[in-house]
């Protein structure tokens, strides 16, 4: 129990003093996960919109596939990216293994399907409402996709936040492809795992507190946005 309260004291001390190591780790975490999120949105939103607008043969199978990719275990994604980026792998010549870029690739592969699958769900409802009107107006598929993404913006922000939450909290993929190298690829989750096993509970807890606050503020931001959307009847 003493350990426990001491750890808390230490954690708040580290946060309050603006410990350089601590904030370096937090900064890298944010950089990696936000970049992965941006890439995932650029990939996932159009895929989601396309799956809604185009009723091609085999669409149901593709949707089931994307949906099941949502539940992909991060360690497996990490393993696959590792195999691709390792020296003997097809992309080994890029020399990206154990770099933040490798972590970004792994997290993008992890959350792009989530963003695609969830945005398809969000946009499906919108499409049901707009479809007949758009066909009447002769709106092209491309314009329809863009209009759905623009008009579904509030719902899609929630989708993006869900993806970000998953990316920033994930440990399995980044530890395999990043290697948890100090000052290079050490992010919050891998640092927590390491510090806990080392017994440095203060550092682990400090990172844990920051990680949880990020998760909470992300959710608060999401519900604030939803409130704004509802006030404008845009939800």
């Amino acid at each position, binding site marked *: 129990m003493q350990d426990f309260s001491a750890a808390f004291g230490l954690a708040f001390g580290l946060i309050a003093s603006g410990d350089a190591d601590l904030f370096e780790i937090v900064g890298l975490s944010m950089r990696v996960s936000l970049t992965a999120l941006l890439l995932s949105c650029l990939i996932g939103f159009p895929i989601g919109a396309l799956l809604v607008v185009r009723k091609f043969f085999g669409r149901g199978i593709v949707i089931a596939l994307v949906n099941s990719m949502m539940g992909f275990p991060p360690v497996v994604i990490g393993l696959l990216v590792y195999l691709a980026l390792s020296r003997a792998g097809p992309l080994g010549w890029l020399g990206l293994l154990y770099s933040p870029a490798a972590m970004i690739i792994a997290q993008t592969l992890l959350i792009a399907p989530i963003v695609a699958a969830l945005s398809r769900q969000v946009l499906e409802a919108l499409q049901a409402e707009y479809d007949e009107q758009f066909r*009447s107006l*002769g709106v092209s598929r491309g314009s329809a996709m863009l209009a759905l993404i623009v008009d579904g913006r509030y719902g899609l922000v929630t989708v993006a936040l869900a993806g970000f939450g998953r990316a920033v909290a994930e440990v399995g993929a980044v530890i395999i492809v990043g290697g948890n190298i100090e000052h290079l690829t050490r992010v919050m989750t891998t640092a927590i795992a390491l510090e806990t096993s080392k017994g440095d509970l203060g550092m682990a807890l400090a990172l844990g507190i920051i990680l949880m606050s990020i998760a909470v503020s992300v959710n608060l931001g999401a519900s604030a946005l939803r409130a704004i959307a509802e006030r404008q009847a*845009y939800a």
Partner: protein
Amino acid sequence: MPDTVPFAPPDKPDKGPPTPRDRLLPGALRLDRLTLQVAGKTLVDIEKLELEPRSVTVVMGPNGAGKSLFLRLVHGLIPPSSGWVSWGEVACGEATRSTQAMVFQKPVLLRRSVAANLDFVLRRRAGSRAERRARRDELLARVGLAGQAEQPARLLSGGEQQRLALARALATLPKVLLLDEPTASLDPASVQMIEQIVLAASAEDTKVIFVTHDVGQARRLADDVAFLHHGRLIEHRPAAIFFTSPASEAVDAYLAGRIVL
């Protein structure tokens, strides 16, 4: 017939008798043995119907008569099970649909400002930015929404939303304007405004097909009336004759306000 005051049709510009050339105009509709079956049930079954290219045709009938389906069939939003639809000798399809605009019973507005809803349509037309802006302002003034350009479209009242939907339809400069009970459950002021705008569009040679089950509205608008019942065309006659001497029991009962089964 019920004892009603004889109806004097409103003054309308005389469009003149149809000429053979009229049959080629994009507003001239022809249907041949048109049917629509869904799950083994026949919902629309119209042997033959020809509409003149510039008149206001009102489509009437009790609920479930197939009025909305009729409109979607002629607009090309749903394919018929059999039969043939053409507009001025052009088979109904994407090409004819692009010259038409439809206003739905429940307006479908984008989750954007009033002005942005019109820009969405105007953007795809030729003209400079200034011209489009002028056109947008003119349309907003025409439907009485000039002061609300920057408001979120979905915060407008029901009547205002429908007027915006009508303005958007007119923004496409349609040759044919299709309206599916556009004034159902709207305030009287909006109803009047929408009827006036529709009549004005008709005066500019836009073909109008207006679905309603409001007899008073039909009297105010119609040049000719098509009466549907159970998906079949019961009567299609000039408004003057339709309202004064209905040829079928169903129409007689409907106009008298009795329940038509």
